């Protein structure tokens, strides 16, 4: 019966929509609860510092190395294209704007999600699966304040710094390739870059993006961990979900932010 099949299909769409909405609602309440419990996490700064160590310091290597390579590739590819139009001197502009506006926040966000976000989810999920969160609650210690909030804020603090380091190393990598390897003029490289990159329009907006991505990744990571099914499969699928959801949300949010930020520039 085709009609029946259609009805069943529509019902499935409805059920999925409701499930997604319910989850979003739950995530929003969770977000509010984490923010509500944050003052306790700040009062004991040591807890948050520890999470900055795990989220930020341990992500340093991947961020620095990736940033450097991305910058070097950008310089090679950019030079190849710019050279055709005799605009070699604009290489610094191309690299700096790509990194500061887009690649820095976005790629650092993606790397951060897969390095630190997944680790946060796995850690919290494992604590849940082994009753550590329940044990904490039975000891009259709120896991939201003791476990979740410090990780959340550790991620938010780490992410903009990592994005800035990514962009910086990218510019450095591009300088290595462009100036040291290809032999472009050092003065033109930096001079044109400085003339074209604006502090408010480019640097500040890029920074805002990286803060937003930090909030997104941290929230998804702690939420998925806290919400994970308390089993081995539950934790592993929650970890996967963290990476996938973070990547999609970062890219979507990046589009929205870009529309608002760079509207009217160059148009």
């Amino acid at each position, binding site marked *: 019966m085709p009609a029946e099949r259609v009805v069943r299909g529509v019902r499935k769409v409805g059920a999925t929509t409701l499930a997604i909405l319910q989850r979003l609602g739950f995530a929003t309440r969770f977000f509010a609860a984490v923010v509500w419990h944050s003052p306790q996490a700040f009062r004991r700064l040591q807890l948050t510092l520890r999470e900055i160590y795990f989220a930020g310091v341990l992500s340093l290597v991947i961020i620095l190395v990736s940033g450097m390579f991305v910058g070097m590739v950008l310089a090679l590819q950019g030079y190849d294209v710019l050279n055709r139009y005799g605009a070699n001197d604009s290489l610094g502009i191309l690299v700096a704007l790509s990194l500061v506006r887009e690649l820095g926040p976005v790629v650092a966000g993606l790397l951060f999600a897969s390095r630190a976000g997944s680790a946060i989810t796995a850690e919290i999920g494992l604590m849940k699966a*082994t009753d550590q969160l329940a044990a904490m609650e039975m*000891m*009259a210690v709120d896991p939201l304040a003791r476990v979740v909030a410090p990780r959340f804020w550790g991620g938010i603090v780490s992410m903009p710094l990592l994005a800035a380091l990514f962009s910086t190393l990218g510019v450095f990598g591009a300088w290595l390739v462009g100036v040291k390897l290809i032999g472009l003029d050092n003065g033109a490289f930096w001079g044109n870059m400085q003339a074209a990159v604006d502090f408010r329009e480019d640097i500040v907006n890029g920074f805002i993006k990286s803060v937003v991505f930090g909030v997104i990744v941290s929230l998804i990571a702690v939420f998925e961990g806290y919400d994970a099914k308390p089993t081995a499969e539950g934790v592993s699928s929650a970890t996967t979900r963290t990476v996938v959801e973070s990547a999609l949300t970062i890219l979507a949010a990046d589009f929205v932010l870009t529309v608002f930020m760079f509207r009217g520039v160059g148009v």
Partner: protein
Amino acid sequence: MKTAPSPAAATFDTRCANAVELSGVTFGYDRRTILKGIDMTIPRGKVVAIMGGSGCGKTTILRLIGGSLRPRSGRIVVAGQSVPQLDRDGLYALRRRIGMLFQFGALFTDLTVFENVAFPMREHTDLPDEAIRDLVLMKLNAVGLRGAAQLKPAELSGGMGRRVALARAVALDPMLVMYDEPFAGLDPISLGVVGQLIRRMNDALGITSIVVTHDVYESLKIVDHLYFVSEGRIVAGGTPDEVRASSDPFVRQFLDGAPDGPVPFHYAARPLEQEFVRAR
């Protein structure tokens, strides 16, 4: 060991002879009913075992007493306070006086043994570091693991982990300690050690203990009273001597480990003939 000052201490510890009282407690998720009217009194200073098969609602009883679940109906009174009516602060104040040992210990894997035991003290007291150090080493000494203070939980055997969790459960000198399957997965020696520790801690610190377990022989050695739970009800109970002498079919099945009896071997199903007639 009169240490670890707690602001809530004064409100408990007085008057009531029973540490925990449950009457007419029912509980369930959605359509599934798990507890169908539990009456239970746990006198102060005693070790009481709650026994039953897997999945019969034993752990649920502990969660109700600890306030992480709310009953559908019935009264739960711990140290004179009605648990379901407590607000968050009241509940947390009560929980500071309750220790709990989770199944498999639930030690914090990122902290050392020392820090695990120190955790409740650091969270709830303003004691200086030296005082905490002395207290923690005393607790660890009581469970015989002072030497393991700097190990990580992953480096401990199952029995040692259980003992550390025990030390953590009594860190703040609680008035009530709940044990969720303290014997699960232990070898006979560790099992005996943990059993003896439960008894010794109870008597030395003057606490009340509730042990949820399906290990009937170990329980008979250490407890003052046993309750048997099956399908959401208390089906039998008594002192260890009464239980040993009991002719109750459920208790007998539990003691003898018979595969069939009041707890059936077969999951509820249609009659066998009907099943095969249909299949053809």
